[in-house]
């Protein structure tokens, strides 16, 4: 209701105000978002599909794509489990320090990814707190694939939890109690009642997390030391190719990363329209 009245209030603004605001938004988006993205695709395909296929047939490029997909594939499910656990713990139980915990989950949003990378080196580097011990077991974290995965996880921690906490807070636990009183087991309650209720926000969080995991540069750059064909993810490989003055290959790879992100974005807006549709339906009836 309040949202609707806010809208009608705004549409009563003078025409010129409306046009200025719309103009600023469209201009900003075109100049700073659409134009650069268009350039990436244009540069990638400028010399035809040939450069594109050559760039992709490069071993290092394929290794970078593989590593990005691997890091994402490890990071996203872990994040999903963590997000569900964190949201469940902070909304269904009460314990001291709960609000502090919720704030701490947000920490990766506030901290620069470069700092995150440095922290990982301090902990897992050869002279770091745990690095020596792990090295003893033959496990190298920093300047290796585990470091890349750890850095990706660190920067994406808040995504799923952040989406779920407000939704689960609003829903409370009455539906779960109802299910249990009707004889459902804990697992049945979770799969048949809780999960369907948070399905869309969960998927939304997972998509955002995926996009971020694939695109992460700063933290990964610090811990990977850019070993081509080994610890380079797509963003790092693009950077390396560009520094080699191999612009066509850089743009070809960039267009792939951009396509992945755009796909995620499209899925996200489709989800948003679904959620809006659902909440509108409920408003109409109430």
């Amino acid at each position, binding site marked *: 209701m309040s949202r609707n009245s806010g809208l009608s209030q705004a549409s009563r603004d003078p025409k010129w105000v409306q046009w200025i605001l719309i103009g600023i938004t469209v201009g900003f988006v075109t100049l700073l978002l659409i134009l650069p993205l268009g350039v990436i695709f244009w540069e990638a395909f400028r010399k035809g599909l040939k450069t594109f296929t050559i760039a992709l047939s490069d071993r290092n490029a394929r290794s970078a794509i593989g590593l990005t997909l691997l890091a994402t594939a490890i990071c996203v499910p872990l994040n999903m489990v963590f997000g569900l656990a964190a949201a469940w713990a902070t909304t269904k139980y009460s314990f001291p320090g709960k609000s502090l915990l919720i704030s701490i989950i947000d920490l990766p949003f506030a901290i620069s990814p470069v700092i995150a990378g440095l922290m990982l080196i301090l902990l897992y580097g050869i002279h770091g707190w745990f690095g020596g011990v792990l090295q003893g077991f033959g496990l190298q974290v920093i300047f290796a694939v585990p470091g890349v995965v750890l850095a990706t996880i660190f920067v994406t921690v808040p995504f799923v939890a952040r989406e779920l906490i407000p939704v689960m807070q609003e829903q409370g636990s009455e539906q779960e*109690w109802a299910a249990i009183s*009707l004889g*459902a087991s804990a697992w049945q309650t979770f799969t*048949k009642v809780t999960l369907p209720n948070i399905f869309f926000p969960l998927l939304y969080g997972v998509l955002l997390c995926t996009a971020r995991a694939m695109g992460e540069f700063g933290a990964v750059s610090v811990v990977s030391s850019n070993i081509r064909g080994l610890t380079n993810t797509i963003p790092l490989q693009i950077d390396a190719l560009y520094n080699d003055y191999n612009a066509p290959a850089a743009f070809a790879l960039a267009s792939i990363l951009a396509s992945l992100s755009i796909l995620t974005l499209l899925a996200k807006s489709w989800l948003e329209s679904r959620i809006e549709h659902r909440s509108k339906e409920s408003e109409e*009836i*109430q």
Partner: protein
Amino acid sequence: MSVEVQHVNKTFGSYKAIEDVSLKVHSGELVALLGPSGSGKTTLLRMIAGLEVPDRPVQSGEGKILFFDQDVATWSVSERQVGFVFQHYALFKHMSVFENIAFGLRVRPRSQRLPKAQIDQRVRELLQLIQLEGFGNRYPLQLSGGQRQRVALARALAIEPKVLLLDEPFGALDAKVRQKLREWLRRLHEQVHTTTILVTHDQEEALEVADRVVVMNHAKIEQIGTPEEVFHNPASEFVIDFLGSVNVFSGRHVEPLSETKTAETKTAGAKTDEAKIYVRPHELQITRESLGFSSISAQIQRIQRAGASAKVFVHTSKEQNVRVDIPIQQFQLLELEVHQQVFITPLHSHVFSPEYTI
């Protein structure tokens, strides 16, 4: 099945939600737990359901909850086989009405589960019982509040619960729908005869629906009785005050300790006999002439004629505001007007001496 609560306590931190409460609900009975918010009624209901655990007993015989004389204190919610209906329905939004009602039957372990055809049959019967045949494919969000609450009730009844527990079931509905559902619930109870405990803060609802009413205040039970008993023979000032509007006079007894005799309302010197006198608006008479020593002179401030009785608000010579209800026909004969000087006389009153109050 009978439900019994024996000397149960419940504290949340330092807050006492339930203090030494004992109660027995007989098999097939419909009992209302009535009280203001914070009186502990919902906590008591949730403890019976197993959603809340009573405080650990200090002495033996304390803190027991019995279902049919069997201690269920250590039983889980599902083992108790109670049907619980929440104030805000708690329907599963992503399931149709049919699936909601079938839920309790479908989640049973395979060995105890009814065949699909029988489940469908049972759900159809329940849809009929709640007068929502043809609504099986709708989703909760497509129903009105009253319809949702009926679905919640059918869902709870589907598992054939031993006890039906209703937490403010009509609290979120508007007055007209509440009235209808109240009557429907009473008829339903006569059909299914499941032992039912209903929590409400609405005295009209409790008096109209329940076989017995348990009036609660400050974590304790004030009175248990039939609707007639609690309304006409209230055990405490709280009960008379909570069950409808009442005028309070201070005065002293003519006959000490008799509780429901006509009382003298003039304050006299005798300190020992000081008491509060409670008179319901319909227990007062308005006349133009004084009827004797118990009449008080007053001036009419406001008259409200809408309804079966007229509500006359008067200001007495003792600087008190008093409400008098008169049947509308009688009111018309009296030809009363605002600012008129009249006399009010209690026909009936309830007296609580200080030493008898808690």
